């Protein structure tokens, strides 16, 4: 394994990588289910984002610390168990501290254990890098995911309910469509297309469209 031959990238670069250039939802197209499911309001997106951020950071740290001990052949089951442990912990913590929000997103918090983004970061990054870069990579990815959820949530809440973070913006009858399941799919289609178009503009039309997701 050539893990220590090259210097790990700096904290800022890792954060930028997670939030913009490899954004889990819009660029990597991973973990799409929650991106549609809980984003009817910004607050729901926020709470799931926080949960994912916490699970990602904690499992990345655990794997980065324990990577010398984990035998490569059993690494996937071990990673899954590590994630499941942290998901259970976060699940109980949220149920205890924010019961009202938890009631709306409870099932999806439990399902974080099956999110491809977390296990793929463990596999790609935390299992090969020391503690500090793993931490920043996890924070970057977690934040990227949280921001993506909140952007989708903002679009859907403003159009579908006429409010933002629960604060009423305009009193006219909102477009119910965006609060419905179908609206979730359309919002993501529009946002993805927007980011693709933006990227093509910035890079002069050479960029490839977002990678097709296969997991998560």
């Amino acid at each position: 394994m050539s893990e220590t031959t090259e210097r790990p990238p700096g904290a800022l670069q890792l954060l930028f990588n997670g939030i913009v250039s490899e954004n889990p939802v819009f660029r990597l197209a991973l973990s799409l289910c929650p991106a549609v499911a809980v984003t009817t309001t910004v607050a729901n997106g926020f709470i799931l984002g926080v949960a994912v951020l916490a699970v990602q950071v904690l499992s990345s740290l655990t794997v980065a610390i324990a990577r010398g001990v984990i035998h490569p052949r059993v690494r996937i089951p071990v990673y899954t168990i590590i994630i499941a442990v942290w998901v259970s912990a976060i699940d109980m913590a949220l149920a205890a501290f924010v019961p009202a929000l938890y009631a709306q997103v409870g099932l999806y918090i439990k399902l974080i254990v099956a999110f491809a983004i977390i296990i793929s970061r463990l596999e790609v990054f935390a299992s090969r890098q020391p503690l500090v870069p793993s931490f920043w990579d996890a924070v970057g990815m977690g934040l990227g995911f949280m921001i993506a959820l909140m952007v989708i949530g903002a679009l859907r809440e403003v159009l579908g309910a006429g409010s933002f973070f629960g604060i009423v913006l305009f009193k006219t009858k909102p477009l119910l469509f965006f609060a419905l399941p179908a609206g979730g799919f359309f919002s993501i289609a529009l946002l993805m297309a927007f980011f693709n178009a933006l990227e093509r503009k910035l890079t002069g039309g050479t960029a490839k469209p977002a990678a097709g997701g296969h997991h998560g």
Partner: protein
Amino acid sequence: MVERRMPSIRTTRFSALAPLALVAALLLGAPMLRGIGAVQAADGGNTIESVAIDTPDQVRITFRGEFPAAQATAENFRFAEAAAPDAPMALKSVKAEGRVVTLTATQALHPTERYKLEVADPPISRDVTPSPWATLVTLFLSSALINNFVFTRYLGLCIFFGVSKKRDAAVGMGVTFTAVMIFTAMTSWAVDTFALQPLHLGFLQVLVFIGTVAAVVQFLDTMLRKTHPALHRSFGVYLMLITTNCIILAVPLLNAQGKVSMLEALVLALGSGLGFALALFLMSCAREKMELARVPKAFEGLPIAFALAGLFALAFMGFSGLDFFR
């Protein structure tokens, strides 16, 4: 080579047709089973033969003997929800025609709910329970169409978008998925009912279920490879993709949440699996056609697939009122 492929193809056809036949049988049989809410009363005198709920607000009671019209008054009958037996419903009218008495309530009644019926003269008390068929068919329809995992619960999107590019792959995935879902749901139901609940280990749900799912998938993979190599060649690829999928994990979690019976768990798994297979099949057909369409550059790939899924979701909203029993 041709002979080698044969069993695989035949089995594929059979596995695709068998669930369809089952669905058709359930759908056709359901309306005929409406009256099966009946339980026999055993004491002498004039007893009740059957009680049926007629939507929207009527209860049809059939007695064994003639029911005197003089006794057909609202005071003589007490009809309440089983959950609140002390709060009887107000009855709009009571009509007796020969052996049949029809009560009309002031509120809507549902054949899938439990009620308690009491008659003062002759003194009879009985529970009106929904037929198990009604419950199961409702559960099946709800999990397959009304609450379709992909289009209204938004789960399994990763596999949904990943595998729906080709129709063959979509069908293979759908069949494998349904089979695995039934196995994992049954195993996790047993683990939950016989181990987690008696020992009050509910907080270990996530950990235990993901372990169970992984173990079952691994077991199926090994079994299939040894016993049906041909089948394994056509479906083995999908099997490995399934292990950490959100739907596979969501079904045990939903079952545990609802504290369902074994049969209900089985039906929920079957419905969810078939619903997912249907979604995959529809999407793959649409995406194959889309290959020929001219899509704006920015929408190429996933964005247009999402828009397409949105259209399907819109269509599936039409199922939301679907109910044979209301």
